[in-house]
């Protein structure tokens, strides 16, 4: 070990790097197998798989379906993005429950939510997962929740009603 420590030639350095990665790989995988609930080495990370609950139901909701719920006024939209983005623009009538402050903000927003209403969470777009996390949180709290596919980006592209903090209706 001491010789390796002093070695400066390429082979010795490559060997050191290999040792670091090999030990990390072996320890990481072997300790995982010893866990009571080991993490699968390969997992399905598709959106559908992520939004499927343990009982096999999916929380995913297509944009078209979300629009139908919106037009029938039969769902409450919850914006999972941060306050600044919400103020810049959001779905008309949506509430803001930023995922990053969900513990603090939930008590303030909860009284505004009808416990029987369908909640539809959304965030920036397909690359955003805040709405997924928020949906599972709200589901744990006992609400009926769905996640709108495509999020804010898809809503804007569909030219559906939006508003900013000023309350001005931009696309209605």
């Amino acid at each position, binding site marked *: *070990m001491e010789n390796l420590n002093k070695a400066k030639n390429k082979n010795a350095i490559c060997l050191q790097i290999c040792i670091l*990665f090999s030990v*990390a*790989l072996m320890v990481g995988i072997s300790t995982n197998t010893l866990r009571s609930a080991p993490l699968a080495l390969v997992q399905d990370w598709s959106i559908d798989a992520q939004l499927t609950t343990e009982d096999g139901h999916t929380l995913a909701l297509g944009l078209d379906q979300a629009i139908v719920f919106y037009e029938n006024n039969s769902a409450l939209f919850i914006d999972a993005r941060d306050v600044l983005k919400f103020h810049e623009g959001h779905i008309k009538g949506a509430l803001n429950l930023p995922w990053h*402050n969900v513990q603090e903000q939930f008590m303030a927003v909860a009284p505004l939510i009808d416990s029987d209403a369908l909640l539809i969470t959304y*965030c920036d777009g397909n690359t955003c997962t805040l709405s997924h996390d928020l949906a599972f949180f709200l589901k744990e709290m006992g609400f009926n929740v769905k996640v709108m596919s495509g999020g804010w980006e898809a809503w804007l592209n569909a030219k559906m009603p939006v508003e900013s903090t000023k309350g001005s209706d931009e696309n209605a």
Partner: protein
Amino acid sequence: MHDFRINTMVDNTRTQITAKSIQAFFYHVARWILGMVFIYASYDKIIHPGAFAVMVHNYQLLPGELVNLTALVLPWLELMMGICLITGWLMPGTIIVSNLLLFTFTLVLFYNIHRGLDISCGCFSTSPGETPVNMFTIARDGGFLLLSFYLFWFEFVSHESSTDKTESPRMRI
């Protein structure tokens, strides 16, 4: 005249030794700080691999097949590097991996801010409520990267340019 030359040589030698001692001192401080940072960063991720896997996936840079493997191995690599930096084991290799990792982390954070991805850093905590990635996160990682660059410079550049190549500067403190 003869005495003056000797005195000048002695003074120059003293100045060089002092400068190298200061460099060596900062080298040790830098590797201890970085070592503790890596160990601290690994702790929560080792305990909660599932939560860390979600964060790795949220970055949306790795194919799904590599997400869990990365979440299982990366924290242990950080722990190994932390131990090596503090103890001085496997130093040249550890410094290279440290530079590569921190450079990659900083680049990934910058890229995610650039594309507007609102996600938690996952740098030190797997808590979902962690502060999202912002410029402070990048500045913090940039600071760690500078420390790592210094270790690289001291280990490879400074030592190579030293007149006395038989003695490792690391041992001079």
